[in-house]
């Protein structure tokens, strides 16, 4: 059973490697959104330092949400998804494999890219590290919650916008604790940052426990 999940993960990674342009455009989007903020609020260093964690988090949230529409769409279009659903393996395991692949392709590069962008916003290395750590815990939760949205909107009209409308309100807790964990350390309250980080881990655990099942039932509704 786990072997099938592993195979799904491997297959999705391979497919993503064959379509590198998708991956590159998501990362370019992330960098571009971050680069737009200095144009919007002005180049003042102190202000940019203050808003940096929030900007990076919101940009990561948007980039990962935009990439979600690809999560099930290709497999749905060519019928692979139905074959996977018909196999004896529980659908949540397959969903988990696909979400893990999606996170490795979209989430992890965002996490790795974030410290460099943080330096661009004038954060020191000490401040960039908690930011990257918060993204490391937060982005998998975003992918898990997003999988439910992607499954619900499969084949619906107005896909991308609708998906964002469904997923973004549900992602707010992750954003709040993520920014709390990233920004708290920059200021005085280090304990707040630790608490936020722990709560973020709790959200990730909760999402890990519930989201694959919810997404699997959403896929079943879409496929019947």
């Amino acid at each position: 059973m786990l072997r099938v999940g592993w195979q799904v993960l491997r297959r999705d990674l391979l497919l993503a490697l064959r379509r590198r342009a998708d991956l590159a455009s998501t990362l370019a989007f992330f960098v571009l959104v971050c680069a737009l903020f200095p144009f919007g609020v002005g180049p003042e260093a102190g202000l940019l330092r203050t808003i940096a964690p929030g900007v990076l988090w919101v940009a990561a949230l948007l980039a990962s949400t935009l990439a979600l529409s690809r999560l099930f769409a290709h497999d749905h279009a060519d019928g692979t998804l139905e074959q996977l659903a018909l196999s004896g393996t529980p659908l949540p395991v397959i969903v988990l494999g696909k979400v893990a692949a999606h996170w490795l392709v979209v989430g992890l590069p965002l996490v790795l890219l974030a410290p460099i962008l943080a330096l661009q916003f004038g954060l020191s290395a000490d401040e960039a590290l908690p930011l990257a750590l918060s993204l490391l815990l937060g982005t998998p939760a975003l992918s898990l919650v997003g999988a439910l949205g992607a499954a619900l909107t499969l084949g619906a009209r107005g896909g991308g916008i609708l998906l964002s409308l469904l997923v973004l309100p549900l992602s707010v807790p992750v954003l709040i604790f993520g920014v709390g964990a990233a920004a708290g350390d920059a200021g005085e309250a280090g304990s707040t940052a630790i608490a936020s980080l722990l709560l973020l881990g709790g959200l990730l655990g909760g999402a890990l426990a519930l989201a694959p099942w919810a997404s699997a039932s959403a896929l079943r509704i879409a496929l019947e």
Partner: protein
Amino acid sequence: MYTTSTLSAGAPAGRPWLRYAAPQAFFPLAGKAIPWLLGAALLLAACGLYLGLLAAPPDRAQGDAYRIIFVHVPAAWLSMLIYLAMAFWAAIGLVFNTRLSSMMASALAPSGALFTFLALWTGALWGRPTWGAWWVWDARLTSELLLLFLYLGFMALQAALDDPRRADRAGALLALAGVVNVPVIYFSVQWWNTLHQGASLSSRGASMAPIMLQAMLVMTMALWAYAIAAVLQRLRSIVLKRERHTAWVQAYLKEKQHDLG
């Protein structure tokens, strides 16, 4: 697929109320209830507004500005309650595959969104004289705003799916995900920031004059009566639209046409 259609013929012995799970049986019942509910809403609103705007004394700190509470608080309560009711009926529809429950969930959503918007709007009007700002990024305001987006997402998802059966079930799943998330959203936003005054009603009793409380409760009942009437009316239209191929809707429409001459 639709198991409930057998229920319209006759309810199982001992559970006659199950008869009304059939749209055909519920449709006339809702039609009869709506005028009574609307009448009650008007009467209660008149009483509540009299108590709230004329009988209740001005607040010591806020003067007359506080009087918007008689709309604001009932609307805010109702906005949350309707979401729970919507998720409840959606879940019943998902589990028992009853058509009417899913239609009820769809009928509840616009009213819920309306009351959420009303709560936000009256809150802005109240915030301006008391806090000096139309909007503050406070925990309760923000979670109410997110609630509005949950309603809008539910309605947008149902509108985007062509197959009504899939729309029902996908919407139900989204509503349930929202219910799991609402406490998380609420507490996370509270963690994030709070400025809103404490709740006026708590388990320890009300922190307001009895006449203000009476006015608020009467207004709450008025808005409830209105909301139920509006939801039932919307439910009736949804029933007619979804069941337009059935014999009883055809007969009903023919009769209506006859009445109109």
